[in-house]
């Protein structure tokens, strides 16, 4: 009896599509809609800029040319130059790196921590540990997010790593709440009950049976959250509390543009456009993702 059960399970495992197949399936479903397709293309462009910045950028982002400062769009500086005569286009392309790095870094750290704590708390529903985790989540959620990020950066000091830490810290309870709520539901399903009856260890049940089945809503949040992280990185850098100059970040470019707002409008317009572009990209993509992961809407 026992051998047949494992046989069936193994056969089934071969039949279920692997991660890569799932991934292509989801991606195809996103790209089927116009919005999802545009969002995916935009994000692909951002990723390309981030990875291939040294080859795509026409100039060194930190190369100063004081004679040509505040140049308008034209040749050879396609989008003009800033107050030190640095090429705006190159700085925007390099700024993609910071945006992508912060978005992916902060979102992955916060989601991994949040989901882990949320699942463990949900699995131990009603126990002291559960209440402690909920308490922890609620404390962090009590702060207006940007203010908490400000406070953490104020204490740790401004730098790229600290911005990622601060943003991840402000966001993890949101993933935790989703993961916990989903776990409460999933742990009552028959397959989890069966695994428990077979005497599997809780840690194995959590990793193998619960976590994969609660990820869909978490992933949908990831997309939206990346946009938020890009905004806040720019915001913190704009305040001078994020990435340190002379690193090219859209927020720092806006900060410099704000200082010289009377002199050169272009130094504000271009980074604003870059931020707007990435916001639309993430929002369209995550909308597509939400539809793709929702079986009810997928086939509409």
């Amino acid at each position, binding site marked *: 009896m026992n051998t047949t059960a494992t046989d069936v399970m193994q056969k089934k495992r071969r039949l279920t599509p692997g991660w890569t197949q799932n991934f292509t399936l989801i991606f195809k479903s996103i790209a089927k809609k116009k919005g999802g397709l545009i969002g995916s293309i935009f994000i692909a462009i951002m990723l390309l800029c981030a990875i291939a910045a040294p080859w795509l950028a026409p100039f060194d982002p930190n190369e100063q040319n004081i004679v040509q400062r505040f140049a308008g769009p034209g040749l050879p500086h396609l989008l003009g130059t800033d107050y030190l005569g640095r090429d705006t286009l190159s700085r925007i392309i390099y700024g993609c790196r910071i945006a992508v790095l912060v978005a992916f870094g902060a979102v992955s750290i916060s989601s991994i921590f949040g989901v882990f704590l949320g699942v463990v708390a949900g699995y131990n529903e009603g126990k002291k540990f559960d209440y402690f985790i909920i*308490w*922890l989540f*609620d*404390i*962090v959620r*009590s*702060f*207006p997010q*940007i*203010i*908490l990020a*400000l*406070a953490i*950066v*104020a*204490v*740790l*000091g401004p730098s790229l790593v600290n911005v990622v830490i601060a943003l991840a810290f402000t966001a993890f309870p949101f993933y935790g709440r989703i993961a916990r709520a989903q776990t409460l539901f999933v742990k009552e399903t028959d397959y989890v009950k069966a695994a428990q009856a077979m005497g599997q260890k809780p840690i194995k049940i959590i990793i193998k049976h619960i976590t994969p089945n609660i990820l869909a809503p978490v992933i949908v949040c990831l997309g939206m959250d990346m*946009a938020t992280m890009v*905004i806040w990185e*720019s*915001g913190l850098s*704009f*305040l*001078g*509390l994020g990435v340190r100059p002379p690193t090219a970040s859209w927020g720092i470019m*806006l900060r410099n*543009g*704000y200082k010289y*707002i*009377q002199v050169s*409008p272009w130094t*504000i*317009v271009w980074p*604003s456009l870059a*931020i*707007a*572009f990435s*916001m*639309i990209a993430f*929002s369209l993509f995550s909308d597509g993702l939400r539809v793709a992961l929702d079986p009810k809407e997928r086939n509409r």
Partner: protein
Amino acid sequence: MLKYSFKRVLWVFPTLIGVLLLLFSLTYFLPGDPATAILGPRATPELIEELNSRLHLDRSMPVRLGYYLKGIVQGDLGTSVWSGHSVSSLMAEALGHTAILAVTTLAVAAVIGIILGAFGAIRQDTPISGVVTIISLMGVALPDFVAALLLMLVFCVKIPIFPAIGAGEGFWDIIMHLILPATALGIGWVGYLARLTHESMVDVLEADYIRTARAFAIPQKSIAYVYALKNAIIPTITVLGLGVGKLLGGAVFVEIIFSRPGLGKLIVDAVYARDFPVLQGGILIATVLFVLANLVADISYGFVNPQIQYD
């Protein structure tokens, strides 16, 4: 419902205690000696000693926590390291400016959002829903500080019709100083509230009681604007409570850009100056208001919408 409200209110207390602990521990996490970190490397030993005794930094951890909590309970948030003003008086001044901004933003955004959303749902043949889509897209694409910078660029620098900095004095001046910051903050809210109203209006218009009203030959207009709208704006209204709380702490960037002396600017200036008593006090006030707004929104949502079940 009452039981849920009661539990929800009670839960605020342990949360706020946690918030206080976290805020208190902020100074503890400062790299190195807090007094040196606040005063900078050129501070004399006498200055450091004076600050240490003023902020009780020379005492042990539990004693400092005791002082901190005692102060909070007595309504004393400490004094600014630099200006010597009491933190609560600084807060009281700043909070007014932020509150005016937050309330104006949301009031205007709510009126425009509800009109656009409701009208778009009633007259689906008009281009209103297109307008709503564009506004929502703008709200998504332009975070408040980007919108603020662009508005400042256009309406203060290129076409100087609005004042760029400060909060203004006197009625008209204050209004003029509010327009650009409120617009920057409000774009996202208009789109969001319009979509929210639109969706709930579409739902409500399909409800049985609307069909009944139609069967009684009640004029189309009064069905839409009296019978349906009354129920359709419930979710929008509950979101507004949340919005005030969010904006009180979330107007940071806009306040900095337009140099409005509000809560956000106070907090950021405290960060620049490493003025930890002001920083802690500002964050505490913003957080308490945020928590209260959440509380009111949660509870009122349950009361106005009896379909929501809590266990």
